[in-house]
């Protein structure tokens, strides 16, 4: 009898406690502007608490964003960037416009890795260490050394090392555009490009007058301007200072002329998995 009474008593107290929390939740007004939207915004977020936005978790991000809606257009959840529908809902909830185009960034490696080895390197297995020894063990002083400093910096397993070519390979689906890898590369081979890029330029060798790229590697840019001439849609702009092509993805129709005409196959389609325009 006493047992049943005790159980009932605790159940009753628990019920009252729950009711109290509910009443406070409903009744206490939001004095801080925007805080009432926290739950609404939190529901739109992926809930994985990955921390890529720079806050302690999805709920912490929702708190900060609902207090300061302008924050959403400076730094948003990288997981949402591909999802236009959710971004639209987030815009309505916050009352600001989110420029996804400027935030959707992917890391791109400017090397295809066909430069041959000058010597066998058996020192510390780190690109930073290897690059200090005579500028690296590749013939091209700008080449990817493939020892994986960027891979170790990546928190999302988006970078792997291709053992045959000896270069880093970036998985554009997993890449969140956090740019942690950019400063790790001693060769400065990784930079952030728009996630909607269509053609990628995979060479970092731009000093045309010293030695043409062909002598350094089979896939190096020879600065021949063939891609610039081949493009019928003005989507390629020739950067005269660096003697490299630059791409305007808004004008690009993905006709493939520039990729086909490139004699050293420096140009490639940007990762098809991420670009909605890719064929």
């Amino acid at each position, binding site marked *: 009898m006493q047992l049943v009474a005790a159980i009932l*008593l605790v159940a009753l107290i628990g019920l009252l406690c729950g009711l109290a*929390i509910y009443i406070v*939740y409903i009744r*206490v007004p939001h*004095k801080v502007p925007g805080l009432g939207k926290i739950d609404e915004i939190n529901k739109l977020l992926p809930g994985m608490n990955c921390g890529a936005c720079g806050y302690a978790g999805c709920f912490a991000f929702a708190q900060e964003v609902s207090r300061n809606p302008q924050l959403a257009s400076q730094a948003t959840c990288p997981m949402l960037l591909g999802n236009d529908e959710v971004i639209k809902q987030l815009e309505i909830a916050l009352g600001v416009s989110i420029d996804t185009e400027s935030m959707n960034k992917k890391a791109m490696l400017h090397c295809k890795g066909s430069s041959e080895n000058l010597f066998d390197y058996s020192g510390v297995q780190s690109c930073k260490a290897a690059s200090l020894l005579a500028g690296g063990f590749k013939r091209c002083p700008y080449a990817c050394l493939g020892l994986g400093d960027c891979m170790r910096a990546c928190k999302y397993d988006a970078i792997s090392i291709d053992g045959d070519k000896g270069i880093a390979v970036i998985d554009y689906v997993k890449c969140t555009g956090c740019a942690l890898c950019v400063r790790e590369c001693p060769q400065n081979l990784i930079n952030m490009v728009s996630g909607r890029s269509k053609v990628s330029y995979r060479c970092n060798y731009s000093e045309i007058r010293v030695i043409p790229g062909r002598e350094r590697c089979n896939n190096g840019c020879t600065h021949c301007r063939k891609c610039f001439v081949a493009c019928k849609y003005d989507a390629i702009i020739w950067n005269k200072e660096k003697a490299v092509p630059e791409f305007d993805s808004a004008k690009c129709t993905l006709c493939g002329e520039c990729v086909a005409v490139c004699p050293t196959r420096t140009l490639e389609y940007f990762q098809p998995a991420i670009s909605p325009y890719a064929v």
Partner: protein
Amino acid sequence: MSNILTIFIGMALINNFVLVKFLGLCPFFGVSKKLSNAASMGLAVTLVMFLASAVTWPITHYILAPLEAEFMSTVTYILVIATLVQIMELFIMRTNYGLYSAFGIYLALITTNCAVLGVTLVNARESFNFIESLASALGAGAGFALVLIIMSGIRERLDTSNLPKSMKGLPVAFLTAALLGLAFSGFSGMV
């Protein structure tokens, strides 16, 4: 009045929760690395202890005692304290966001802190009246905050000193805790 002062000093120094009763040891080592964190944790614990004592006293004396259900006090206290912390967090978040960010994660963390439960159980065991309960909670909180702040100050200083490699970090923190405990044992018999 002198009775209340005795209870306050007794809970803060003589029966210090951390160093004499060995309650709340997880935050004692977990949150004592930085002085600022230790101070906000100490403040949060004091606040929760005070409110928990204020809420559990009427429950003990007007609900549990008439029903002769004092044996249920531990379970009831846990329920009530958890609810209280939730309500308090909601309230602070919605009314004063600056204070909410100052407390940070610590307010939610101490929901199930044994030191908070400990002070309510001590109040019930010693059969304090309402004012005495509040004094004992404030004393316990002040003692907890004091020890946490002393410990974090020492640990911050030790971080920059030249220690043998095997002693760096936790080992020297344990030794410090032992010496602090020894020092606090000097208070026994003061009242």
